[in-house]
């Protein structure tokens, strides 16, 4: 006499198989170890690729970031990252109210240009009241006035091979140690070791009062990049005024980038030089920006 099983056999087999699968689910703790392997990093980047693809699909050059009425302007536009560059050259420029400051445009351009602040203010201007979204999660609304980047690029004339516009800034974020130069990717190593790694607005919180001229290694100054689609977007401006006043040092004086459809760290402050390039390789670690080289998305639309 066979005593029948309370669970039909095929069901039992299915149950056990599925239970084994569930054990995999419970292995959340191994996520951190997975994330620092090359495969893990590549897998995690899939989401970024999908985000970029969809945004490129949806965002036409004519899609504008929302512009707000002046009544929505935040009483305080939170400065973040570098708020007071300690670089000697920058301090010298600031001391003379940026009268000696020049913006250079070079790289893959027909005619390299150099503009003073007065030159830039004489060019066509655009004013836009927009919301600044920090990658950390907070937002502030400010009224920006500046010259459309397209106007500046038009005067320099792009060469046919131009693909990216790179912004070189005045503020030092950190110094490379001499012995670290052999490390292919110090940012990634630091992350794997669990170091604090938090982007903010456009600048690091970690680089407090660095003196670029002290013998500490090579200074890494802030850098950012956008492609030509964003460079020619009507809301992409080089801003010299915030809320009708000259841009304060804490917000990036004398000139900062506004790329309104992206997060705060793309809005490079203290811009000194604009370099037009055909590739992002050769700038920093090749990710296209200071924070991009430390794990953040190059296309920061989300």
């Amino acid at each position, binding site marked *: *006499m*066979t*005593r*029948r099983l*309370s*669970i*039909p056999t095929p*069901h039992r087999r*299915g*149950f056990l198989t*599925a*239970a084994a699968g*569930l054990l995999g*689910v419970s292995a*959340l703790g191994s*996520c*951190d170890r997975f*994330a620092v392997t090359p495969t893990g990093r590549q*897998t*995690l*980047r899939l*989401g970024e690729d*999908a*985000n970029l693809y969809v945004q490129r699909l*949806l*965002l036409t050059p004519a*899609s*504008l*970031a*929302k512009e*707000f009425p002046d009544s*929505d302007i*935040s009483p*305080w536009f*939170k400065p973040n990252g570098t708020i007071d560059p300690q670089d000697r050259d920058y301090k010298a420029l600031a001391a003379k109210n940026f009268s000696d400051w020049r913006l250079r445009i070079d790289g893959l351009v027909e005619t390299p240009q150099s503009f003073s602040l007065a030159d830039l203010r004489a060019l066509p201007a655009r004013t836009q009241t927009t*919301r600044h*979204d*920090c*990658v*950390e*999660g*907070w*937002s*502030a*609304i400010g009224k920006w006035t500046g010259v459309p980047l397209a106007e500046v690029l038009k005067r320099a004339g792009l060469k046919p091979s131009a693909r990216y516009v790179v912004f070189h800034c005045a503020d030092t974020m950190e110094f490379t140690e001499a012995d670290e130069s052999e490390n292919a990717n110090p940012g990634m190593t630091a*992350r794997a070791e*669990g170091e*604090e*790694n*938090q*982007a903010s607005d456009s600048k690091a919180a970690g680089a407090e009062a660095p003196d670029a001229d002290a013998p500490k290694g090579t200074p890494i100054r802030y850098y950012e990049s956008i492609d030509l689609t964003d460079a020619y977007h009507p809301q992409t401006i080089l801003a010299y005024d915030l809320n009708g006043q000259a841009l304060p040092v804490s917000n990036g004086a004398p000139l900062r980038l506004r790329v*309104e*459809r*992206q*997060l705060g760290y793309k809005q490079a402050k203290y811009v000194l030089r604009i370099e037009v390039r055909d590739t992002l390789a050769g700038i920093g670690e090749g990710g296209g920006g200071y924070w991009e080289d*430390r*794990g*953040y998305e190059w296309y920061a*639309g*989300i």
Partner: protein
Amino acid sequence: MAAGTALGKGALGKGDVVETMRRRWMFRHPLVIRLAHWINVVCLAILLMSGLQIFNAHPALYWGAASTFDAPFVAITDDQRDDGSARGVTYVAGKSFDTTGWLGLSNYNGEATGRGFPSWATLPAHQDLATGRRWHFLFAWAFVINGLIYLLYGIGTGQLRRRIIPDGDQMRGLGSSIREHLTLHFPEGEEAKRYNVLQKLTYLVVVLGLLPLMLLTGLSMSPGVNAVVPLPDLFGGRQSARTIHFIVTNLLVLFVIVHVLLVLASGVWNNMRSMLTGWYVIERRKLPAGPEEIR
């Protein structure tokens, strides 16, 4: 002893009801729904933990389009005192709570560390916004694709309607269903073939309300998406959308807790088996003593 196989129209499955000696079985969950359920478990776990990592980068919530830094709706901070001691403080709507050990100040690698949510709740465990965002966005895609497959399948087969729309007689029996839940007595037999009314209403709110709301409030935080669709306007601004995203997260965590408790209370093996193999026991019978046979 006779045991027969009866095929009837079940409420959830393809309608297969199988009789064995001691039990009546029902094929309750088709493969697509079982897979979707477990994929969703993985997605929501990773989305929750990476979401808390992202939240920790700025552990405060606001209402409106922009942040009102001097008057947050919620803020989780650590209060360093002059005597060198510290405590975790959580502010909610103007009231402050000591949340030392949990929120604001918690142990990380054996040291009291100022952070919003504790390291055991975040992915990665250490403060790393960039990697947290990568986890979040990758599994947001998995969550959305999985959810779309579930919805298309559920609508196509009529499963969704049977699962989340209460029948007329059920709505009238709402009161008794509440009593059943409070006393932890659950129906057997014919009535167990369909979800009960509270179950259906809860799944209705979660599947068609909370989960889509998570997606919409999540997308509202994207400046890129905002330039295509003015989503934040639906929620009263980007910071409101972020706050709602957080509140709905809490509601989903609450749902999962109640869901798991009720699974435990209403027969953990029967429920687990049905979500793993599809087969659910709708009735158990006492048999007279005697030899048994396979049907």
